[in-house]
C-alpha cells in the first residue's frame, strides 16, 4: 500500500532558498519563473497606470515629455521581454511539458536552470538603466535608429539586457525541442501529444531561429554607440530602414512566441470544461506549425510607412492576410469544441472565453492594419496600441491567468475561492475593455501614439481609458490577492483530478506532483490525448 504521506512532493523535498534557486527540477524552475515574472508584471502594470494618469487630461499632468518617453519604453521592455515572451513557456511549459509527455524532466535540466539565471541577469540589467546616467532609454522598446544611436539615455545597457534575455529564450526553446523529440513516453507519437505540447514545439522553433537575428541587430546598435560608426547612417551609405528590417525579422515572429502558447492553453482548457474531445486535433496541431512558418515572412507590415518599396509592401500585406487563416481555423475549432459539450463554468473557462473574444477583436483589428490602404492612416496611432494590447494582454495575458487558475490545484495542492475568482475575472474583463477599446476609437480619430500630450478632441476616449485602467487594476489585485489567499484557506484535499474532467497526463498524478512527477506509470488514453470516450480509470 502506497501512502501518499510517505512520498514527499516536489515542494517538500529539500527546503530553503538555495534548494530553490539552484534546483534543476523543472517544476521548481517553472515556479522561480512564475514568481519573478509576476513581480516584473506588477512593475510593468504600475508604469502603465502612470502613463494612463498622464494621459487623463491633455497637457502635462504628472511628468515631462522625456520622462513619459522613458516610462513607455520601460513599460514595453518589461512587459515584452520580462513578462510576455517567457510567460507561458517558462512557467507552464517548464512545469507541465515533461508531465504531459509522461517523463520526469526536460532533456537538459541544468540548461533549464541556466535559462532562469540568464533571465534574472537580463532583468537586473534592464532595471539597472533606472539607476545611472541619463536614465532609462527613451526610444520606445523598438530602439529605432538613428535616435537610439544618438540619445544620451541608457540605450546600450537596455539593448544588452535584451540580448541577454534573448539568450534565455533561446535556451528554453532548445530544451523543449529536444525534450519533445526524445522524451515522450512510449506509445505517445507526435500525433498523440497534447496540443499544449504542439504549441510549445512550434513556439520553441521560433524562439530558437528568430531570436539570434535581433541579438546581432542589437549588438550593431551597441557598436554604433560605442564606436561612433554609422551602420544605419545614410551619410556613409547606410540605411536606417535596414535596422527596422532586422529588428522586425525577430519581433514579428516574437508575437507568435507570445500567441502560440496561449493558443495551446485554450486547447487544453476547453476540452476539460466541455467534457469532450477537442474538435479538429490535427488541424489545431498543424495550424501551430503553419503560423510559426508563415509568421517569419510578414515582418514588413510594421514598416508600411517607413519608406519601403511598393512591391515589397504588397508582398508583406498578402502574407499578413495568409497568416490569419490558421489562427481562424483554431478559433472555429475551439467554438466547435464547446458546441454540445457539457459546459462547466469555472474560472479557467471564463478566462478562455475572454481570450477568444479579445483575441478576435485584436486579430480582426490586425487585418485592418495588414491592409495597406487602411494602415497608412492608422500606423503609429492608438489603433495600433489598442490592437496589440487586445492580442497580447487580452489574449496571451488572459490565457496566462487562465492557465494559472487551471493548474493552481495541481501545482500547489490547494484551491482558491472560486466565487471571488469569478468576480475578479469580470472586473478584470470589464476594466480591460474599458481601457483598450477607446484606444481603437481614438486611433481611428487620428490620435498618435507615444505622445504624452494630445489634442482636446481626444479627451473623452482618454478619460474612459484611464478610468478603465483603474477598474482593471482593481480586478487584477483582486485576482492575484485571491490566488495568494488560497494558500491560507482551509486546506481541502485536492485529488489527482480536481476538475474531474481533465484527461491529459498531469491529471493522473498527485496534486502536488512527486519530485519525479509520477507515483505510478501514466496510462495513455486509447485514441489520442483527448479521448473522452475511453477515459482511463484513475484511482486515488
Amino acid at each position: 500500500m502506497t501512502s501518499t504521506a510517505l512520498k514527499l512532493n516536489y515542494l517538500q523535498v529539500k527546503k530553503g532558498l538555495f534548494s530553490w534557486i539552484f534546483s534543476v527540477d523543472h517544476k521548481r524552475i517553472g515556479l522561480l519563473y512564475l514568481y519573478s515574472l509576476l513581480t516584473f508584471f506588477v512593475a510593468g502594470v504600475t508604469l502603465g497606470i502612470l502613463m494612463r494618469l498622464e494621459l487623463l487630461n491633455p497637457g502635462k499632468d504628472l511628468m515631462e515629455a522625456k520622462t513619459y518617453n522613458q516610462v513607455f519604453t520601460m513599460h514595453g521592455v518589461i512587459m515584452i521581454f520580462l513578462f510576455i515572451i517567457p510567460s507561458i513557456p517558462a512557467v507552464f511549459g517548464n512545469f507541465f511539458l515533461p508531465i504531459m509527455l509522461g517523463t520526469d524532466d526536460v532533456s537538459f535540466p541544468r540548461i533549464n536552470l541556466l535559462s532562469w539565471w540568464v533571465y534574472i541577469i537580463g532583468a537586473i540589467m534592464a532595471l539597472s538603466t533606472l539607476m545611472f546616467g541619463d536614465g532609462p532609454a527613451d526610444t520606445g522598446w523598438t530602439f529605432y535608429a538613428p535616435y537610439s544611436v544618438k540619445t544620451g539615455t541608457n540605450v546600450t545597457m537596455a539593448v544588452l539586457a535584451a540580448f541577454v534575455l534573448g539568450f534565455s529564450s533561446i535556451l528554453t526553446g532548445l530544451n523543449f525541442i529536444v525534450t519533445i523529440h526524445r522524451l515522450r513516453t512510449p506509445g505517445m507519437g507526435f500525433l498523440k501529444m497534447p496540443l499544449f505540447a504542439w504549441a510549445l514545439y512550434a513556439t520553441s522553433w521560433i524562439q530558437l531561429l528568430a531570436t539570434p537575428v535581433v541579438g546581432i541587430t542589437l549588438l550593431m546598435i551597441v557598436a554604433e554607440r560605442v564606436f561612433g560608426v554609422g551602420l544605419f547612417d545614410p551619410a556613409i551609405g547606410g540605411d536606417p530602414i535596414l535596422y527596422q528590417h532586422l529588428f522586425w525579422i525577430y519581433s514579428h515572429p516574437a508575437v507568435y512566441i507570445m500567441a502560440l502558447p496561449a493558443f495551446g492553453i485554450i486547447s487544453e482548457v476547453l476540452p476539460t470544461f466541455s467534457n469532450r474531445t477537442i474538435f479538429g486535433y490535427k488541424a489545431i496541431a498543424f495550424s501551430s506549425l503553419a503560423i510559426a512558418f508563415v509568421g517569419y515572412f510578414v515582418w514588413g507590415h510594421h514598416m508600411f510607412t517607413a519608406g519601403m518599396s511598393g512591391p515589397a509592401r504588397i508582398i508583406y500585406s498578402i502574407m499578413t492576410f495568409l497568416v490569419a487563416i490558421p489562427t481562424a481555423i483554431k478559433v472555429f475549432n475551439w467554438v466547435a469544441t464547446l458546441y454540445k459539450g457539457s459546459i462547466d463554468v469555472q474560472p479557467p473557462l471564463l478566462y478562455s472565453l475572454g481570450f477568444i473574444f479579445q483575441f478576435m477583436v485584436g486579430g480582426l483589428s490586425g487585418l485592418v492594419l495588414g491592409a495597406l490602404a487602411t494602415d497608412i492612416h492608422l500606423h503609429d496611432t492608438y489603433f495600433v496600441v489598442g490592437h496589440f494590447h487586445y492580442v497580447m494582454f487580452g489574449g496571451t495575458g488572459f490565457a496566462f491567468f487562465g492557465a494559472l487558475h487551471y493548474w493552481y490545484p495541481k501545482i500547489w495542492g490547494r484551491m482558491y475561492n472560486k466565487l471571488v475568482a469569478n468576480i475578479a475575472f469580470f472586473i478584470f474583463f470589464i476594466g480591460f475593455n474599458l481601457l483598450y477599446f477607446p484606444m481603437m476609437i481614438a486611433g481611428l480619430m487620428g490620435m498618435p501614439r507615444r505622445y504624452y500630450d494630445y489634442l482636446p478632441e481626444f479627451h473623452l476616449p482618454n478619460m474612459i481609458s484611464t478610468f478603465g485602467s483603474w477598474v482593471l487594476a482593481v480586478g487584477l489585485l483582486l485576482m492575484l490577492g485571491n490566488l495568494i489567499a488560497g494558500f491560507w484557506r482551509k486546506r481541502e484535499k485536492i485529488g489527482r483530478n480536481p476538475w474531474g474532467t481533465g484527461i491529459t497526463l498531469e491529471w493522473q498524478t498527485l496534486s502536488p506532483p512527486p519530485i519525479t512527477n509520477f507515483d505510478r506509470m501514466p496510462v495513455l488514453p486509447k485514441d489520442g490525448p483527448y479521448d473522452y470516450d475511453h477515459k482511463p480509470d484513475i484511482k486515488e
Partner: protein
Amino acid sequence: MPNSGHNRDAEASKLGMWLFLFTELLLFGGLFIVYMVYRTLNPESFLIASFELDVAMGTFNTIVLLVSSMTIAMSITAIQLGDAKKSIALLITTMALAMVFLVVKYFEWSAKIHHGLFPGHEVYQNLPPGESLFFFLYFFMTGLHALHIIIGGVIIAVVIYRTNKGLVNQDRFTLTENAGLYWHLVDLIWIYLFPLFYLIH
C-alpha cells in the same frame, strides 16, 4: 522511468548541439544580410575597399581552417576506434592550426589599423561612403568569427583534458563529436566570409 530527462542521451546532446548551431548561423546570418544590402547599395565602394585586403593571406587562412576541420573530424574517428592518444594529437593539431589562423588575422588587422583604417581613426573617418561600411563589416564579422575560434579553442582544450582523463573514450565520445560540429561551423562561416570580403573582383 526509461525516458528520463536525467539519463545520458547521446542523441539528445547531438540534437541540442545542432539546434545551437542553428542559432549561430542566424546570428551571423543577420550580419550577412547587412553585408548583402550594403554591397547592393554601394557596389563600387565595396570593390575599391576590398583591394586593401590581402588575397594570399585570406587564401592561406582558408586552407588552414579547412585542414583543421579535417584534423578534428579525424580526432573523432580516432576516439571511436579507441585510440585516445591519436585523438588527442589530432585535437592538439587542430588547436595549433587555429592559433596559426589567429596569428595571420592579427597581422592582417594590425596592418589595417596601422593604415588608419579602423573606426575612430582619421583615415577611416574620411573614407567615402560605402567604404567605411565595408571596413566596419570586415572588422565586426571577422572579429566575431575570431571570437568563435577562441571559444572553439577552449572547447577543444576541454575535450583534450577529458580525453586524457578517460572521461571521453570509445564508449562516450559525444563531447568530441559536438566539439567537432562547433568547429565545422566556424569553418563554414569563414567559407562564406572569404569570397565576400577578399574576392570581390
